[in-house]
């Protein structure tokens, strides 16, 4: 259902300010599943492959550790959203996933209609898997299609082929998940404009209600960064900008509205966990390398599997570090998170300070940002970081 019909039915548009602001109060949980068949060359997430001791024999022990970590958490909740990220959450059998969802339900409770989402690789995802995962309590699935061009998938080091992605989407839609998301990556060296246009078309035509599109980024310490250092082509920011512009132009016809730099949804299908994060909402992270944000403190877990398991099994917190911001720091952070959204953020103190600087005035004059009715919005999402760098440090 596209915009007008949805509004008529009382569902706010994905980029509505009231949705963006309400998300601040939502509570969510993040569960990290680090297991992957292999490491993609661009990936710098906390990942363990079978060769690195992350084979299926480890799954039950890891899930047990997650349950222990959840069990030890203070009373909180109920949860509006749960997001399983990775790694490859779909590597875990549905039964294991179900154990975790049940534990979260037990410990914190889930609101009615809570979003329970997981990331899945197309090659792991059959109709049978989809059905079992849905039965385990999941309402949303995010499929890592990345591209529908075999050459691009090859360049990205992905194991699946385009037809796997199409079949996976069909399976997810058939089983009846409330929301199906497709992840795309743009600007892979070698990807032509035509290849990208075709990937976009296939994603939009597939019937998914949510789309995330990320520019390929060279992260330190990855195989990709080593290749680039050795002379391989790096992603071209102008090509990426063209790709983004193309998607931005094509998405509305499929009923998708951009509500954040990299996210598009049909009304009623925004990602609750995502919106809560950008609204500076609170979340608890469980598992390897997971992050939490609660009571003004941001915490992160250790990134090594053996260390994580040992710590949790000894009854210790697997925490690797934490950060507590000053109230001025939080105000600055509120703006730098909020400005990623199409709805922007209430200007507040940080916004007023920015607008009072010469740089802020230049950004307004050049049409990169605007302030209207007390909200600051970035009109050119691809230049968001250029805006964020100008937010003055708060006294």
């Amino acid at each position, binding site marked *: 259902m596209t915009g007008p019909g949805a509004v008529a039915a009382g569902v706010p548009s994905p980029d509505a300010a009231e949705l963006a602001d309400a998300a601040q109060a939502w509570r969510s949980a993040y569960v990290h599943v680090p297991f992957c068949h292999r490491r993609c060359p661009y990936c710098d997430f906390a990942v363990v492959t079978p060769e690195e001791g992350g084979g299926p024999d480890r799954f039950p022990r890891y899930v047990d550790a997650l349950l222990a970590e959840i069990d030890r958490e203070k009373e909180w909740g109920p949860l509006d959203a749960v997001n399983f990220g990775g790694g490859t959450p779909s590597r875990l059998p549905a039964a294991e996933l179900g154990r975790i969802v049940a534990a979260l339900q037990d410990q914190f409770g889930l609101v009615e209609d809570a979003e329970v989402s997981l990331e899945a690789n197309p090659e792991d995802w059959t109709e049978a898997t989809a059905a079992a995962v849905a039965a385990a309590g999941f309402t949303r699935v995010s499929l890592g299609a990345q591209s529908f061009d075999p050459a691009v998938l090859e360049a990205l080091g992905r194991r699946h082929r385009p037809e796997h992605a199409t079949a996976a989407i069909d399976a997810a839609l058939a089983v009846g998940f409330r929301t199906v998301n497709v992840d795309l990556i743009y600007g892979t060296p070698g990807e032509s404009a035509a290849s990208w246009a075709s990937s976009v078309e296939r994603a939009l035509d597939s019937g998914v209600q949510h789309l995330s599109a990320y520019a390929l980024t060279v992260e330190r310490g990855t195989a990709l960064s080593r290749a680039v250092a050795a002379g391989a082509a790096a992603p071209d*920011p102008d090509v990426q900008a063209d790709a983004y512009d193309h998607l931005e132009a094509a998405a509305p016809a499929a009923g998708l509205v951009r509500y954040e730099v990299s996210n598009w949804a049909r009304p009623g299908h925004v990602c609750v966990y995502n919106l809560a994060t950008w609204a500076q909402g609170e*979340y608890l992270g469980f598992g390897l390398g*997971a992050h*939490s944000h609660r009571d003004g403190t*941001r915490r992160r877990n250790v990134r090594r599997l053996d260390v994580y398991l040992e710590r949790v099994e000894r009854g210790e917190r697997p925490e690797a570090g934490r950060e507590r911001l000053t109230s001025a720091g939080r105000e600055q*952070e509120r703006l*730098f998170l909020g400005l990623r959204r199409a709805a922007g953020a209430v200007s507040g103190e940080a916004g007023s300070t920015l607008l009072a600087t010469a740089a802020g005035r230049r950004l307004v004059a050049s049409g*990169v940002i605007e302030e209207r009715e007390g909200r600051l919005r970035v009109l050119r999402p691809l230049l*968001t970081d250029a805006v964020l760098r100008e937010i003055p440090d708060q006294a």
Partner: protein
Amino acid sequence: MRNPPQVAMTDQARIRNFSIIAHIDHGKSTVADRLLERTGAVASRDMREQVLDTMDLERERGITIKANAVRLEYRAADGEAYALNLIDTPGHVDFSYEVSRSLEACEGAVLLVDASQGVEAQTLANAYLAIEAGLEVIPVLNKIDLPAAEPERVEAELLGILGGKPADIIRVSAKTGEGVDELLEAIVTRLPAPGGDTAGPTRALVFDSYYDSYRGVVCHVRIVDGTLRSGDMVRFMATGAQAPADEVGVRRPAPVPRDALGPGEVGYLMTGIKEIDRVRVGDTVTSTARPASRPLTGYLEPKPMVFSGLFPTDGDDFERLREALDKLRLNDASLVYQPETSRALGFGFRCGFLGLLHMEIVRERLEREYDLDLVATAPSVEYRAHLADGSEVPVRSPQDLPDLAALVSVSEPVVKVMIITPSEYVGTVMELVQQRRGEMGEMTYLTPERVELHYRIPLAEIVFDFFDQLKSRTRGYASLDYEPADYRQAKLVRLDILLNGVPVDAFSSIVHTDRAYRRGKAMVERLRELIPRQLFDVPVQAAIGGRIIARETIKAARKDVLAKCYGGDITRKRKLLERQKEGKKRMKMVGQVEVPQEAFIAALRIDE
């Protein structure tokens, strides 16, 4: 704790004052280290490399920038105790002024030559300085332990320059210590003891000074006549400054206070004077009780060869920059500066330097020792503009060049250049010199394999990258020395650079007409690479007298955002942004355009 003052002055006959002079990298600091160690000035356990190079920068770069003095106590083969004052000197061509100053305080010089490299341009230049100053020279071959050492060949080169016989040359390995004892004996037996009038009025030469934040100005002095006593009221004859001598002493190398310094002695003088312009290097110190009637022959004021604007990135730091320059000048008499205003960069100083290395070092010291963030503009030489009314004005900055209408002609400084190179590279060196508008002078074969070439080259042509080019064309074998010659008329114009349509004075340069187009084209191309993309298209243009000769465009940034934040890792994203913000602070806003500091210098180091 300070040592108690020692009473006795040293008998002139038991003093030897000497410098070690050498081409850069020929092992001067290592030989000095060995002498200190052998005479017990530094215990072996306290020994570290480059003992006399106290500045961090000197140790990092492995060079000597500042002169330094240390007293070595040596018992010679004749059974007598001698005081050997070693006055350390820099080796780089930029600092030859420091060398000549140090030589004024000596009777002898140890001329050090790397036995694997042979005589180099600064070896010769320094040797001539020593001979002109009337010093006794002890030639020394260093690094004889190296497998690549060719002592016979290098001895032949040395004898060709200095005359004498092979037996005069001492072979040393500072690394193994071989020959160091012979060198010490030669210093005692071959160098003359200082003269000077013991009974006359006090005259002491200030050959260096530095600023100590507790003690004020500290002078390195060489007593020529009479005695300098602690507690005496002293006067600096050139500036007229008067103050009590709070403390006199010698450096071993730690300061050791003494009651007095007698004729021929080298030591330090602390007066508590804090005003740095009142104590000038080259001045004569006398006692007010019995003043000398005439000062010693001082030095010529050092002549800056290269000028550049220094501007604080943060305009509020202007006063701090002034204070820092004032303090630095005390350690570095060759540094000159005056306030300058740039439309692009605000308030700063136009500074004069001895050369590019000197310029780099001053800038680095200002940033490190005084915690300043600076933008340096392209270096320029001092031109002279001849005007229609017959007058002549100095042009130290491209902005000083008068309008074409008022201008009759412009002349530029020319230097006499000496290059020593293996003969196989003569062709490529000549080609380079020709490209730089050089004129060939004499050519002398030191040996069949090594040639000494003389040229006259416009200074502007050698200050940027001539030395690098020379080195790369000769696989590092050629060496270079130069000295000012005269001024010569040339067809010179000002090349302006416009950023976003606005001329940026800091990017202007004075260039030869024949080169203007290529230089302009290279400049705008380089700036397009160096200046990050902004929120809008930025045209970069090169112009002469309002006529655009080259243009490039820095395209507007289109993508500047992280697509994703991983698993709620907000901290990481914030830290990344904070680092990027820090990077922005090192940019200078020029009109509406953010320009990185490096662009101001790097843009001029271009390959046309």
